[in-house]
């Protein structure tokens, strides 16, 4: 390599470094590599020699959970006071669980106000600037929302169920118009927003598309960045991939105990007490 070549490479490296520095910053800067642009794999598009990484459809059917319907000692209304270091990640002081004999169930982190229904699909829902982290407290649940439990099953004293964490966005997703997305070499799929390669956050927000910079409502951008919807050609609904599987054990009559593992190494330990119908608010 000649010195001239070396100098050119250094020049390129300087440019890359400047790009890397700016793209790594938040605030009123461009954020390169939004989820929609990456299609699930940040490497796609960066190396033309590799095969395209196609978006994998979610909602693959899972086998039904082992076990039986909840027993009479598990059916009913349960309530836990949240305490400990992790409780603050849920922005609620109490957790409420309701289980029916047919396996239906609801989970709700108590809040004075349930979230208002989504009425305007063009704006965001439950999310604000500067992005998807604003959508929920770190625990991942929307306070006040009543989650409909899935995969409720029991095995002896052990109770299991699943909460779908994007469920609160179901109504908002239903208001979206599916947008066909194409990636060379991949089957077409549908999403709620045309793809973009970068997002800019500030008092006004915008995204960078092939045709240039396009303004977007900041709340909508934050909601889009969360990716709470799954779409077909005919409509959109709440995604089911963001979920929490919870296991509780009936440790004594009227007491369920377990942990909500809301991150890989973070758990909220809960002890739920049975609440008589007459005590329910």
């Amino acid at each position, binding site marked *: 390599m000649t*010195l*001239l070549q070396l*100098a050119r490479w*250094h*020049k390129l*490296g*300087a*440019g890359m*470094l*400047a790009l890397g*520095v700016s793209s790594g910053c938040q605030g009123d800067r461009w954020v390169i590599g939004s989820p929609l642009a990456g299609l699930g794999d940040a490497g796609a598009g960066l190396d033309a020699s590799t095969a395209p990484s196609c978006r994998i459809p979610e909602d693959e059917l899972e086998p039904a959970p*082992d*076990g*039986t319907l909840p*027993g009479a*000692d598990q059916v009913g209304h349960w309530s836990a006071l949240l305490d*400990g*270091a*992790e409780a603050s990640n849920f922005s609620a002081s109490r957790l409420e669980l309701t289980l029916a004999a047919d396996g239906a169930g609801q989970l709700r982190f108590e809040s004075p106000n349930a979230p208002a229904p989504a009425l305007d699909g063009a704006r965001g829902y439950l999310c604000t600037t500067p992005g998807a982290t604003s959508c929920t407290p770190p625990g991942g649940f929307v306070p006040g929302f009543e989650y409909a439990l899935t995969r409720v099953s029991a*095995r*002896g*004293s*052990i109770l*299991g169920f699943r909460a779908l964490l994007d469920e609160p966005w179901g109504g908002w997703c239903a208001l979206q118009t599916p947008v066909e997305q194409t990636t060379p070499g991949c089957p077409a799929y549908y999403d709620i927003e045309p793809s973009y390669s970068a997002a800019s956050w500030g008092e006004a927000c915008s995204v960078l598309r092939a045709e240039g910079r396009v303004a977007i409502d900041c709340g909508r951008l934050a909601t889009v960045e969360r990716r709470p919807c799954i779409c077909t050609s005919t409509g959109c609904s709440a995604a089911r991939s963001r979920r929490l*599987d919870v*296991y509780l*054990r*009936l*440790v*004594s009559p009227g007491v369920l*105990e*377990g*942990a909500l*593992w809301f991150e890989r*190494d*973070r*758990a909220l*330990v809960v002890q739920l007490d049975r609440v008589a119908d007459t005590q329910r608010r």
Partner: protein
Amino acid sequence: MSWRSRLCACHPCLFSLGLLLAACSGNAFLIGESNTDGSDIDGARVARPEPEDHCPDLAELRLLDNTCWPTRHVGRWHGFATTSPQYHHRRALPFEYPSGDLLLELDEQGRATLTFSASPEQPRARLDDAGLDLDAGPSSVAADASTGIDGGMAGDAGAVGRVDAGAQHPEDAGARLDAGVAGSRPALGLALDFPYRLRELKMSGAALGRRPTDPRVDFSLLIAEPWGDVCAASLAQLDPELAPCVCAADVCSPDPGLLTVTLSLSADGRALRGSARSEAPEGVLAAGWEFVRE
């Protein structure tokens, strides 16, 4: 163009270098760990050793150093099997874990046991009510997959036999796989109410210098551990198909089948989660386990 002028044309890279230097905290441009003690020997600068990783993984060795022990795992934990609650032991059909409490006890002296219990809500049967032979021995055994509850077992003197009517085996709707009964005759599967000794108890997972906060704990247990003495003493009476013993010549010992467990502590130290694996020629079964600190 001279090489000097060519190099000058590369001013953006010099600018970038300037940015990097501006981001540095010290006066010198140091690569790697900063040296805080600055020891010099004969004029040669000697790198300070890495933060001491003196805590061994093995708990029995950690006990010898009070800077490594006790770890945050010490305590009493109540848990249960969650996902795929099955395990292998000798037979092709897997067993199902008892659906009651898993009591994990690690004390400050390094004693560590795990006890499986029947579901307290399930009906329990007394073997002595069934007119079975009672004598001394381990308190319980689990029934096997193909025969259901093994009613031929002898009960522990004075012990309550337990039938843990858990979920049915998906491939054999008629068999109760986690049915534990009190008895002293060896049988396959986990024994109920027996404090299994944790083997190869290890802690790991924290960064160098922070090993006392290791989040991960690994151990194994010998599924047939309760039957060590019985296997050794009752060679002639054992049914090789049903007994958890391995016999060679004139000696029998417990079947070497293990549960190999890995658990990780939550950040707040109040919960453990992980898996228990068991191997068989048919493959490895990995069940989810969770515990909450008492």
